[in-house]
């Protein structure tokens, strides 16, 4: 899944969406600025792509619910990414408020994808509340630090059944996306790593390949790691006497 923020220009956005092969992109809602003409971002998103409107700006469940309802009123679908943040330094999500918003919005028929800090209790509560997925952060939004919360994401992969686990935030390179997929994560959402790359469409394609590679590796059951060597060539019939 691809975020649409931070692109230097809309042409790069369209090219990146196409190169990535994604079927879902995120957008945000903001007050219009009547003083100046603005592009219609939807024109740069190819037809057939599912729009996932985030609730960025929401500081609590009530505000997230308001944004989701506004998004649905636009007629662009009922998929919503719940993003409830009230700290501007780390942009960490408020898990408790996210659960509250999910309960309300899932009951109203929204397809809810909540963005959270990886916490098993929160994830279980979200599944119970009707979330369509859980989206634990890899690391801080925009930080490109990768899977800093890897082991806590692994717990969700192991324990959460029934809904996809999608790593969202902090994925800074295709290798990190592959790493997540190899662990059994179902999808990743990236924005900064693509939008701010030298060649966004190139990076988007790289992500696509990495995600497929990681998924195939997971399905093919990677062998375990070992702390000691295990020879790859036979230990008998050596040419040289010991």
């Amino acid at each position, binding site marked *: 899944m691809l*975020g649409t923020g931070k692109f230097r220009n809309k042409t790069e956005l369209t090219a990146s969406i196409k190169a990535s092969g994604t079927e879902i992109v995120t957008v945000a809602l903001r*007050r*219009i600025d*009547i003083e100046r003409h603005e592009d*219609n971002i*939807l024109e740069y998103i190819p037809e057939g792509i599912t*729009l996932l409107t985030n609730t*960025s700006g929401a500081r609590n469940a009530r505000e997230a619910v308001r944004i989701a309802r506004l998004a649905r009123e*636009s007629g662009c679908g009922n998929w919503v990414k719940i993003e409830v943040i009230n700290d501007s330094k780390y942009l960490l999500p408020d898990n408790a408020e996210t659960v509250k918003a999910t309960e309300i919005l899932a009951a109203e028929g929204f397809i809810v994808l909540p963005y959270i800090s990886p916490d098993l209790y929160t994830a279980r509560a979200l599944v119970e509340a009707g979330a369509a997925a859980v989206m634990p952060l890899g690391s801080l939004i925009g930080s490109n630090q990768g899977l800093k919360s890897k082991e806590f994401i692994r717990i969700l992969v192991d324990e959460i059944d029934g809904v996809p686990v999608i790593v969202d935030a902090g994925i800074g390179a295709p290798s990190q996306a592959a790493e997540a997929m190899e662990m059994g994560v179902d999808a990743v959402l990236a924005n900064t790593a693509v939008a701010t790359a030298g060649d966004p469409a190139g990076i988007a394609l790289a992500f696509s390949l990495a995600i497929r590679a990681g998924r195939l590796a997971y399905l093919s059951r990677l062998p375990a790691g070992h702390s000691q060597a295990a020879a790859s060539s036979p230990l008998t019939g050596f040419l040289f006497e010991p």
Partner: protein
Amino acid sequence: MEILLNGKRRPISGSLDLAAFIARHRNSPAPVVAELNGEIIQNERWDRTVLKDGDALELISFVGGG
């Protein structure tokens, strides 16, 4: 007459309906969602909704985001 538009005070002429106001002020062809005094107003009702003194109007649309 004065309304609050997106949090800022704005004088408007009387008897303006929401459809006319939005047509005059929208800044892009993107879908606009209107919320008047905390209530979402569906498209179909815009031409029947007349703005009153002191109304708080929010006009919202899509932008890029993660």
